[in-house]
């Protein structure tokens, strides 16, 4: 009878918020299993904007962020924030 707990990003979504920039929505699933049989699954979410600090993100998220958060996207996001 072995209990295991794993955390994995089971959903990484790129959502266009406005022209020129998108956000990345990350859902992390925390899965507890006993002898390979899943007992529970809970979710924790966070969202990354183009100016996000990626230093604490998992490699799969960072890879997508590098593709999505281009210099143009960062500029468009900064301009949108400035306009607010």
């Amino acid at each position, binding site marked *: 009878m072995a209990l295991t707990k794993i955390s994995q990003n089971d959903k990484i979504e790129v*959502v*266009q*918020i*406005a022209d020129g920039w998108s*956000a990345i*929505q990350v*859902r992390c699933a925390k899965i507890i299993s006993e002898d390979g049989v899943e007992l529970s699954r*809970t*979710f*924790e*979410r*966070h*969202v990354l*904007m183009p100016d996000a600090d990626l230093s604490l993100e998992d490699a799969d998220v960072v890879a997508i962020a590098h593709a999505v958060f281009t210099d143009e996207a960062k500029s468009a996001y900064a301009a*949108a924030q400035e306009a*607010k």
Partner: protein
Amino acid sequence: MIKQQGGVFGRNPTFNNVGIDGILTVDQIVEKTASGGTTLNGVTLKNGNVVVADGKGIDFSATPGTGTSELFADYERGDFTPTIIGSTAAGVGTYSAQVGQYTKIGDRVFFNIRLVWSAHTGTGNMLIAGLPFASSSASGVAYAATIGWLSGLTLTASNLAVAYIGGGSTQVQPNQYPVGNGSAGSVPIDTAAGLIMSGQYAAAY
């Protein structure tokens, strides 16, 4: 039991059409072709879940209505980590309570937050960051949040705390509003305070 001319079919009979006046009990219904689907007048699940393919849902378009979308395609609940930040310098704080929960029904995100912080280093106006989904950025949208409890947050005299979420955002913007009259203004960040808040908004998609 399905009979033909008084006899009983073998293990794998094939029918073109079958009419049943009574009850048909089966262990499993399997779609025969990829395009055919299964049409039923009603379904009762005894002990199981309906599992919907990614991006699919319940289509209510056969019902009266004028909405632009009648597809109920999402339900989810979980946690997030709300964080107090300053608008000028985000800063960091020490939290004795830092709880965020959400339920997403369709495009609508319902959330509640409880925060108690101290020794915060942020400067400028107070923001609550970390909402679980980005809000819709449709033109002109904004969403109200309700503050149910405050402790130690310094407001201008005779002001009430209010809050909203702007379009295309993952932050709650607390404001203060003069009792009786006046315009809402920002709330300066406090080094130590606490709040309980709930709200809802439409997620971007």
